[in-house]
């Protein structure tokens, strides 16, 4: 029996985000909110481990009340219980403040064996919350996992590094962050989707987690965002129009002139 906590982040569907060049803003209106891609792999992995070893899966998400939708999807995929961590006090959290909130929540879920999360979030790609949470909870961390095998009170995981695949072993409890490669997340059946609404979902605020307002949100953050600007390309954008037979030598000449094809 394995008691697993899965961390779930709800993000905007990144492929649908656009910049409005005239207003210089990020257009989020009408963009679907989804579970961040590798978090889905984490949920799937939790379900597969449970299918093999038995146990319980608790999906946790910190976010606005809408993040309940992401948790419902996690429940439909096979999580047993969900916790939504939501409070206006959490707004403005950086990775440290987020890890504080998640740490308080998982400490409330006693006797967990495994914390699973995605290797990165699709919106921020900061790679921070997992390791920071592991540090606060004094857990071993295994990142970039492409395979997880439980062996008694130990876990063996394969990791995807730049030049090697590394196999590591850790005692439980431990935190593991997974890559997209680890599995193919299931699409929940209609039955599972309907069943999800019957599963328990708790909503916890800062007070429920005994967190002080100085530890979370903007006040608790160690990093501050000074400004946020829309990213516009600074490329030359030279359009080459006309017949292919004319364009090709023109382009190659330009590249040779810039020294970009030399040394080839």
């Amino acid at each position: 029996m394995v008691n697993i906590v899965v961390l779930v982040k709800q993000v905007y569907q990144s492929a649908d985000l656009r910049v409005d060049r005239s207003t210089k803003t990020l257009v989020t209106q009408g963009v679907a909110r989804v579970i961040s891609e590798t978090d889905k792999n984490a949920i799937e992995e939790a379900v597969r481990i449970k299918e093999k070893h038995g146990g319980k899966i608790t999906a946790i998400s910190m976010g606005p009340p809408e993040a309940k939708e992401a948790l419902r999807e996690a429940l439909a995929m096979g999580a047993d219980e969900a916790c939504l961590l939501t409070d206006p006090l959490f707004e403005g959290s950086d990775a440290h403040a987020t890890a504080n909130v998640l740490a308080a929540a998982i400490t409330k879920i006693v006797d967990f064996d495994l914390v699973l999360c995605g290797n990165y979030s699709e919106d921020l790609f900061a790679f921070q919350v997992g390791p920071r949470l592991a540090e606060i909870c004094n857990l071993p961390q295994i990142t970039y996992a492409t395979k997880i095998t439980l062996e008694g009170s130990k876990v063996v995981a394969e990791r995807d590094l730049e030049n090697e695949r590394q196999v590591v072993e850790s005692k439980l409890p431990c935190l593991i962050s997974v890559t997209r490669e680890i599995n193919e997340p299931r699409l929940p059946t209609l039955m599972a989707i309907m069943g999800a609404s019957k599963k328990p979902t708790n909503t916890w605020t800062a007070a429920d987690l005994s967190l002080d307002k100085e530890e979370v949100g903007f006040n608790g953050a160690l990093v501050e965002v000074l400004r946020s600007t829309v990213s516009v390309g600074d490329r030359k954008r030279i359009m080459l129009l006309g017949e292919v037979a004319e364009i090709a030598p023109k382009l190659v000449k330009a590249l040779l002139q810039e020294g970009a094809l030399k040394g080839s």
Partner: protein
Amino acid sequence: MSQENKGVWVFSDLPALAFELLGKGRTLADQLATQLTAVSINANSDGREHVQHGADRVFLISDPALSTFQVDGYTDALTALVNEHKPDVLLIGATRNGLELAPRLAERLKTGCVTETTRLELDAEKKFVLMDRVTYGGNLVETHISRSRPQIATIAKGLFSPIPADPSRKGEIVKVEPQIKPSTTRILENKPKTAKGVKLGDASIIVSFGRGVRKKEDLAVIEEFAQTVGGAVGCSRPIAEDLHWLPEEQYIGLSGQKVNPKVYFACGISGQIQHLTGIRGSRIIVAINNDPKAPIFEFSDYCVVGDLYQVIPALSNAVKELSKSQ
């Protein structure tokens, strides 16, 4: 904020990246009128190269327990050094190891960390390092500051240039033995990845393709062109992850390889933000796409609207012709 924190430090488990960080670190240290320190852990180095590339001081750690990177041991070692010497800025190389080290170390030190920074500048009063990073799939550039010290930033390979090695540079090399606890994880095996062809990270010319290539057999068109220009072949994520036409190591993007060639040919790649973020470091981007509205054109230097099946062979011929006449 504490006034006692002083000095710019760099650490990377990848020596070449450590030298790049020293390049940027030197600029920051000079602007702050402070010392530049490199931490070198079991890098088969006596520290002299770090000095030649700009370090005023090198902390050399050679502990058999740190012979292979493990996050807890490296966190212990760096925590001990940071707590003793209290640097103001710590730049960490964003290898995969570096990226899992930086936040764990930052949390232990209870300090801010900004990962995958793209720009580091001092504010007008030289109190903070302004750290830019790209978010929301490349759509936003956020400028961060750390409210605590040291200010930690991770930096990817290829962003900054090392200072050319100067053998006459002088610096202090200090052997240190920080206390570390035994690791909580055990490495059972390291299986080297079999590198196929040129490593994309080192390639100076990359010919990359996306869904515009209609079937696997047509890869020959791309490969032939790559051979003609002496480039490495890369692809967008769907080609590797969904179609499996190329191994995972060959896809370029935010979650894949990040490249910095002299010229990057994007053939039949629409320009999903995921992909654009991986090619940001390219000096010149050439896009070939039959859809004039493809987002890739917004982020390219040379834009060819056309059928890649005609354009690529024509480019191959032009390269052969023109390099002959040069």
